[in-house]
């Protein structure tokens, strides 16, 4: 079979890119070293958040939010999307000042989704919150989905359009062969004129094969989840000056994150939970939701994620090679962006341009003299 595009990485970015390309009639293969969704895409917190995005990401996140609203038409599944809003809580005057400046910034960029809300409105939205909070920043229509289910839906839809997943094939090298790229693995080689790097936490390695180094750092955000509780919370709750992401899932469990990082080992591909940090995370939970004190934690976990120094991803074409494209470095907030990233990548690959501004995400920002 003649292949048009070879994608390294069967996470959400690779799968969304594959799906969009296949919809445009391209023959695509995905080369994945483990199984689709084994890493960040399968184990993330599922947060769908425009709230508090880097200004450069806002236009992408806004389009992505629209795509999540209609996700069923794209992937044939609702991915358990729950658009019950996201809110950042202000606990004092300084927090409130910070949030109102943020709201002004977002407005000045021409967006209306981040709304300052009063204390009264906050407690309407989150009655379970500790009583000391003074207001918040709220984005209606944000929410969450189930990541592994979303990844599965993207994969299956892509497969139904002819995308072939080669799973269990770690890519160990990339070679230029005339006008083709050869993707080298231990037991097989794949060839395609176009190559896409969606290798998540390992994307830096792929860049190294391409002699296009990037200052990517791997981190392993930790999560914990509680036993099931009767429904008490609709929006996803974060805080202006604390590390917290707090949501109640459809089945009643409460998912707690806060960007605390686990220890990790990139060779064994393992992470080890740092209990001291999760203790701090639990203290944050108690400060904002004292009613959680006697709720049992059932599981903790962590996932390997690529972080860039400026906390925004690399999305775009290689600065070094023709026909090579990158989408990585999502710095712990790529889940929400995944539908639009696939669309952008397919636009870039097929039309050499994108409908959205990609300058801030260029890999060149790390290559300029210095």
């Amino acid at each position: 079979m003649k292949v048009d595009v070879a994608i390294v990485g069967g996470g959400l970015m690779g799968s969304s890119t594959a799906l969009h390309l296949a919809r445009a009639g391209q023959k695509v293969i995905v080369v994945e070293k483990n199984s689709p969704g084994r890493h960040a895409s399968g184990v993330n917190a599922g947060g769908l958040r425009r709230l508090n995005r880097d200004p450069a990401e806002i236009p992408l996140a806004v389009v992505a939010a629209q795509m999540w609203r209609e996700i069923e038409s794209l992937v044939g599944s609702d991915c358990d999307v729950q658009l019950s809003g996201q809110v950042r809580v202000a606990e004092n005057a300084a927090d409130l000042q910070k949030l109102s400046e943020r709201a002004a910034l977002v407005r000045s960029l021409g967006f209306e989704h981040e709304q300052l809300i009063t204390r009264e409105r906050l407690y309407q939205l989150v009655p379970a919150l500790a009583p000391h909070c003074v207001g918040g920043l709220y984005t209606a229509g944000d929410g969450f989905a189930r990541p592994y289910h979303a990844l599965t839906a993207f994969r299956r839809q892509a497969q139904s359009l002819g995308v072939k997943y080669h799973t269990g094939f770690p890519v160990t090298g990339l070679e230029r062969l005339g006008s083709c790229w050869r993707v080298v693995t231990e037991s097989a080689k794949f060839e395609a004129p176009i190559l896409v790097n969606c290798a998540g936490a390992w994307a830096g390695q792929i860049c190294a094969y391409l002699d296009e180094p990037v200052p990517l750092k791997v981190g392993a955000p930790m999560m914990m989840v509680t036993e099931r509780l009767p429904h008490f919370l609709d929006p996803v709750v974060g805080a202006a000056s604390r590390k917290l992401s707090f949501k109640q899932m459809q089945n009643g469990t409460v998912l707690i994150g806060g960007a605390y990082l686990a220890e990790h080992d990139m060779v064994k591909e393992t992470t080890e939970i740092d209990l001291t940090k999760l203790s701090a995370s639990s203290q944050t939970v108690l400060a904002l939701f004292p009613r959680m004190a006697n709720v049992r934690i059932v599981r903790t976990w962590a996932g390997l994620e690529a972080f860039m120094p400026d906390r925004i991803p690399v999305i775009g074409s290689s600065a070094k090679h023709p026909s090579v494209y990158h989408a990585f470095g999502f710095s712990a907030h790529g889940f929400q962006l995944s539908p639009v990233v696939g669309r952008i990548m397919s636009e870039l690959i097929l039309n050499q341009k994108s409908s959205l501004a990609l300058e801030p995400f260029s890999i060149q920002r790390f290559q300029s003299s210095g």
Partner: protein
Amino acid sequence: MPKTYQLVVIGAGPGGLCAAITAASLGLDVVVLDEQPSPGGQIYRGISQTPDDRSALLGADYQRGADLVAAFKASGAQYWPQTTVWSLNSRREIGILRQGRASIIQAERVIVASGAMERPVPFLGWTLPGVMNAGAAQILLKTAGVVPAQGTVIAGTGPLPLLVAWQYLRAGVKVKAVLELSPGTNLWRAAPYLPGALVAGDYISRGLKYTLDLNKGGVPIYYGVSRLQARGNDRIEAVEYGWDILGSDRRETIITDSLLVHFGVIPRTNLTKAAGCQHIWDRGQQCWRPQVDRWGNTNVPGIAVIGDNAGIGGARSAEHSGRLAALEAARSWHLISTQQRDRQAHNDLKWLRKDLRVRPFLEALYRLPDSLLVPPDDEILVCRCEEISAGQIRQAVREEHGDPNQVKFYLRCGMGPCQGRQCAPAVAQIVAAENKRPVADYTTFRVRPPIRTLTIAQLANLESSES
């Protein structure tokens, strides 16, 4: 910085106790942690508190523990009862819960001796109230004298169903029947190992004694039974079973409000898995176990595993392996030389070899048929926490969720409060069967702390240093 201890032993069963006694005698600072209120482990549970009449009822086997516990109390090892270990990592940081308070201690060396658990075998109706593990029922008898009031049926494989039936008989409980689910053909497979087994003490003679006593007591024992099913609406009302003899679809029913089941025991692997120890599939024992050398060492430096936790060997083997791991610990601190270790290990290694000679016979005799390892009916609930059936798991595998962790992500099976302890083996078995690959190619779910649930407040108040 958490407080550091030289040697921490997790589990005060025969294995852990022997490890502690030996280590303390060689000059090591030892702390033994156990979630139970008194030492003894599974077999000698509550030995120091059991009234004499009940311990007499439980037989001589049970009384052996008294000496062991006495020696432990005199050993100088520290003992922390009612201390639950909820985390162990590769750096030997141990999360414990004591008197409602969570803390982390650091061990320079860890001996994991957390024993075995009853092998969970999902069958139709196994989640109905009134269906219980025979081992758990035995614990109720040993510690509280609690028995099924209206009599019971005991079903399963291995020596324990017979033993529990015998103990109930002696306690005056009506045992309506013992259903032995090992296939009749196991006898032929086991026969070649019999000469080896005969060397190993009294295992076999005790089994014969139980059978004879049960016969005398009028308890029917049915062999080669298959297709066990518990029936009932809100709780069990009857047990159904049949025989898979060629062409026979005869089904029998016993009316009962209690069914005790037991399909042997398997190592508790959650701590060692959480710590990153390597595990392998043991074909003989039909379970996963940590990979260890003769001293109990795992691939993780400073973490050893002994007793049933390292592979089912019984209480005596646990004692020997505990002493071996203690010798190795002493050697690692140069309290004894390698030669001294080897010399002192001589008898334990010899006894261990002898004791282990009974295993191939027992393993062959009580070998579980595939129909018990791989739930055959799609309706059988496999994950009771999240109510996931065998059929759903098979469907997920067909949709390319091709390993147990993917099945877990997709279906949530193994994500409930028991953290997969009950469904992990069956899920891996179904995945392997569905992929037509040997089960040894798979591992069970990844395990993360807490391996026992912990509240948010307990974690928030975590003490990681001792004032």
